[in-house]
Every structure is written in C-alpha cells, then in structure tokens.
C-alpha cells in the first residue's frame, strides 16, 4: 500500500510537487527565523554578560537599583572578604569598576589639545585573571599592546582617532571618586581596541582594576563582582541556585548589603528573552496556520483532480475512511520530505550566517543599544527539529480539511458521476 502511495506521488507530480514546495518554503522560513532569532538573542545576552551583567552579578542593593547612573558611591566595600566568601561557589569571580569621565590630551605646553567624555571598564589584567578571555582583549587590539604595568590604559580606536592620539602618548583622566570628589590622573595609552560593538566603541576605555581603585579612592571596594560559569556558557538554573544561596546570608533591607542577581534579572533581559520566545512561537504558529490554508486549498484542487480516482476506488469497495487515511498518509510523506528539504535549506543558510554573520554596524551608528556589530545565526538542537512542527502539522491539517469531501460522496450516485 505504501509503495502504491509513493508511486502515485512520484508519478503524479501535480499531486506532490506544489504541496512539497509550500512545505519546504514554510519550514525553511521557520528554521531560518529560529536560527536567526536564537543568534540575535545569543548576541545580545553574550554582549550584556561580557560587559555588564556576567552570568551573575554581586553589587549593593542600591547599586542594582541605580545601575543606570553607575555611581560608585554605592559600591561594594570589604571586597577582599566578599571575594573570599565567593571562592567556595563554582564560578569565575571577577571584580569590576565602571565609571565615566573626561579624557584630556595635552599639547606641548600642557594645555588641552583635545578632550572627550569616556566610559571606563576597569578589570583585572593579572596573568591569573580570565578577563582577557572573557573580553576577548587580544583579538580586539587594533594597535599597540595590552596594559602590562600600572598606569596603562587601552582606548577605543574611534576615540583614539577623534582625539588624534596614538599608543605611547599620555592622557589625563578626570573622574569622580567614590566620595564624589573630582579626581585627575595621568595614564599612558598603550593600545587601541575595537570591541565590535558600536555603542561601546564610541568612547570605551579599559584600565587595570587596581589603577581604578586608586584613581577613584576605592580601596578594598568595587562597583560590582561578576560571576561567569567556568565554561563561559550561561546555565540559568545553576546561576539561580548560586544567587539564592548567596542572598540568604544578607539582610534584604540594608541598601548597602550585597545582593546577587542572575543575567536575565538585569537590564530587562528577562523581558527580552520572553519577547523573543513569544516571537518565535508566534512565527511558528502563523506559518502553521498560513501553510495549512495553502495546503488545504492545494488539497481541494487535488481532490477535484482526483474526483474520478476516489470514485473508482469507492466503487471497487474501498471504504471512505481508508481513502481518507491514505490521503493523510500521502500528506505525511509530502510533509516529511518537504520538512527535510526545508530544514536542510534553513540549516544551510543558518550555518552560513553563523560563520559569516551580517554586519549591522551601519544601522547602529547612532544607536545606544549594546549589541555586537555582526549578528550571527546560531544553530542549536532545536533548529534541527523546529521545522517538523509546522511541516507535518500544516500538511496534516490541510489534508484533513480538504479530504473531508470524500465523506460527502454518495455510493448510490457513483455510477452516475463516473459516467460523466
């Protein structure tokens, strides 16, 4: 029977080709969109985790609350004690300080030659630190070298060009200490970097954590401590457990008590993840619905073409239910083949975009959204199977609706119909 159905599908192309193309096209779009949304989500989460949130972040309650203004007045104190406590938790712990200020380049007479605002990320650059790997500093270096000694900084290539400075020159940084005082220090620019994120590359500056502590009068203090899984992949459940365990030991009412939050709890990322999940589900739903209608229509046309065939099969004694079942079987074949084709096509395009990506930096020039300049698709196990939901469901739904006509055929009128 199966062979009979397959032969029919192979020999009667008009019965299988159009539905097959529709299924393949629909599945391709769903697979591609899943891979693309997954990639975009991964890019946003990855960028946020690397530069702002970590997989978990420890900061004072007040600092979390006013994170947008990055005030180090609300920084964590007794840093050494806190880091000691965190050591027992299975994550990479790295203290950081973020602050803004002005960078001033002097001319030969010591007067201001050029000046611009900066955003600084102070991280540990000790050989034992994994910040180089987390921030991908070596690969981001455009010219010069990474800081090796105290008083050395990296600035973004865009800022270096705007200020017309090159590695080796001196810069005066003007910032605000933990106590709110103005602070001025001279630093050596040793390298220019391109982080590949327009919003950061405009005015980013990276300095050694200990230099920032001294500069901002933050002895044994840090703005925040970020935690990363040892494999640098975010494991939500594990992160949540660690955060809950840590927070149990602190008073929730004290605004200066440390509190640990997970990646999705920061920067509205939870909402974004939910939105993207919803968007994926809605997209799949829409395609199932649209493809079902198209395939229903195709089935109806097919049924009209096969009016006589069904009549003869009924006249030969085949039951209506059996004919209906074979019709569903045929659609399952078409659905499966179309889904495999669409999935293969979708995976190929996703793979290409996973390797090459699409450069969106020209669209992000004025944007403040922290997102990588190159967005890549990401193939996950779900990408392989997601197409089977619309691919099989739509063909089955289409066939189920269009095949209902079989049950309206009256055996008593068959001979009359067949004479026609």
């Amino acid at each position, binding site marked *: 029977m199966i062979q009979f159905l397959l032969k029919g599908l192979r020999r009667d192309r008009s019965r299988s080709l159009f539905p097959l193309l529709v299924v393949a096209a629909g599945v391709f779009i769903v697979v591609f969109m899943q891979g693309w949304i997954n990639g975009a989500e991964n890019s946003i989460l990855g960028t946020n985790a690397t530069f702002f949130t970590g997989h978990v972040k420890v900061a004072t309650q007040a600092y979390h609350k006013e994170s947008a203004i990055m005030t180090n007045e609300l920084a964590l104190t007794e840093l050494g004690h806190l880091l000691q406590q965190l050591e027992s938790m299975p994550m990479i712990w790295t203290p950081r300080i973020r602050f803004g200020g002005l960078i001033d380049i002097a001319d030969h007479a010591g007067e201001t030659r050029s000046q611009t605002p900066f955003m600084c990320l102070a991280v540990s650059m000790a050989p034992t630190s994994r910040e180089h790997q987390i921030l991908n500093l070596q690969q981001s270096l455009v010219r010069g070298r990474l800081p090796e000694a105290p008083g050395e900084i990296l600035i973004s290539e865009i800022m270096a060009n705007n200020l017309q400075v090159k590695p080796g020159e001196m810069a005066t940084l003007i910032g605000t200490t933990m*106590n709110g005082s103005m602070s001025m220090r001279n630093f050596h620019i040793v390298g220019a970097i391109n982080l590949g994120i327009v919003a950061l590359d405009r005015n980013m500056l990276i300095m050694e954590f200990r230099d920032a502590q001294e500069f901002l009068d933050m002895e044994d203090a840090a703005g925040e401590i970020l935690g990363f899984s040892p494999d640098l992949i975010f494991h939500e459940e594990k992160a949540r457990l660690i955060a809950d365990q840590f927070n149990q030991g602190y008073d929730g009412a004290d605004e200066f008590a440390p509190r640990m939050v997970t990646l999705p709890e920061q920067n509205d990322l939870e909402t974004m993840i939910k939105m993207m999940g919803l968007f994926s589900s809605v997209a799949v739903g829409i395609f199932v619905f649209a493809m079902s209608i198209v395939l229903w229509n195709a089935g109806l046309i097919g049924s009209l073409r096969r009016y006589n065939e069904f009549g003869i099969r009924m006249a030969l004694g085949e039951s209506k239910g059996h004919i209906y079942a074979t019709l569903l079987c045929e659609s399952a074949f078409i659905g499966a083949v179309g889904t495999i084709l669409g999935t293969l096509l979708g995976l190929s395009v996703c793979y290409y975009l996973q390797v090459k990506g699409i450069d969106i930096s020209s669209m992000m020039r004025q944007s403040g959204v922290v997102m990588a300049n190159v967005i890549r698709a990401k193939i996950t196990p779900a990408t392989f199977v997601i197409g089977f939901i619309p691919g099989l469901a739509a063909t089955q739904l289409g066939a189920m609706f269009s095949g209902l006509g079989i049950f309206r055929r009256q055996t008593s009128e068959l001979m009359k119909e067949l004479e026609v």
Partner: protein
Amino acid sequence: MSKHWVLVLSLSLNSLAAEPTGQQILKAVDANITSDNKIIATKMIVRGRRSSRTIESLSYIAGTEKSYTEFASPPREAGTKMLKLGEQLWIYSPQTDRTLLISGHMLRQSVMGSDLSYEDMMEDPQLAPFYAADIVGEAIVADRSCWILALASKSQDVAYSSRKLWVDKERFIIMQEERFARSGVALKSLQVRQVQRQQGRWVATHLVFKDQLLAGEGTEFIITSLQLNAEIPDHIFTKSMLRK
C-alpha cells in the same frame, strides 16, 4: 562709611516709613554680600549617603571677578588649587601637574564631592542685575523676621531660572534659599545656621547647602576665619600661582 552701609541704612530708615520693594531689598542683599577683597578659611563638611568628609580650604577673593582657592585637607585633595578669573575657572591637580580649564558639562560637576557645583562657584554673587524680585510674604526663620522674595531671571544666561529667598529684615542677609530649574523643579537649597558680625558687617558663617537631586544630608560650610578688605597681591590671581 562704606557704600553698602549707606544703602542698608537708608533701606532700614525707609522700612520705618514704607515697605521697600523686592528689588531694593535684593540690592541691599547684594551690597551686604560683596566686599572689595577678602581672605576666607573654610571647612566644608560633605555628608554623603555612606560617610562624611571634611575639606579645608583657603580662598582669596577680589570683588566678584577673581578668586583663588587652595585645598589643604584631606590629604587626597591637598594641593588642589582653583582659579577663577571672570567667567573662566581653572583647576590644578598636583597628581597630574596639569591645569585644566573647567568648561561645558564639567561645570555641573560637584566640587570635591560637595553639593556645590563649579557652576555655583562661578556664579556672580550679585543677584539684582540678573533677577527681578517681588515680595511674596513674610516668615520667621531662626528667630529672625524675614521677607520672602520670589526671584525670576531676567535672562536665560543664569544657572537657575527662579529662586526664593528668605531675607532678614534688619540685617539684609539671606537666611534661607531655594533654587529652581525652568521646569519648576527644586535644584538646590541653602539654610543659614549662624550669622556673625565681622568687621562691621553681617556674615553667614555656618550654612548648609543641599543639592535636592542627590541623596544625603547636604554640605555644611563653616567659615573658620574671615578677613574683609584684605590686602591681596595681584600675582595671586595668575595661572602661574596654580603650579607653585
């Protein structure tokens, strides 16, 4: 008798006969604030959300155009110097051995973490040329009978669009002040806690300045010594003084 006392005395006599206008009161306040030259040692207690710090400084002031300030403590701020000449303000940091002109948005930054901004420091202490004043009520502040003046800026070239002053009726000294943005949001407030008579002039020697947009209890200013109409050599008000 100095010019300002003539104005204050004439206003006091006038007030026996008729209520002075808001503008007249403002001119008397200006006359009381400004002196030719003064040398002031101050203690600034900055009360933040977590801690408080005391900053000591010595300032040389000539009229409303020139001032030179050197910070003596705490150790981190010691040696920092500021020079104001007209509408320009330079700051010298001994750690960098550089002198920077404070301009643009930096003027809105806090001075040494206090509730006072550089813009506040740069402001001309005279109010009458820049604001139109109306008497809007009377009140008792720190046991002193005061007029309440509502000030509206005459031009857009001022840091605060409007102000409200509580002016001592006898001493023509501001006892309390609120400063507002164009939107009507209160930006800064000032409360005088102590007034002393120094060299024949009423001077607020202890006041609390508060940035209303910041948490914390404000910044206390205490004048520890004041020398009015002092002899100040001209070289004090030069950029070369900053690096000495």
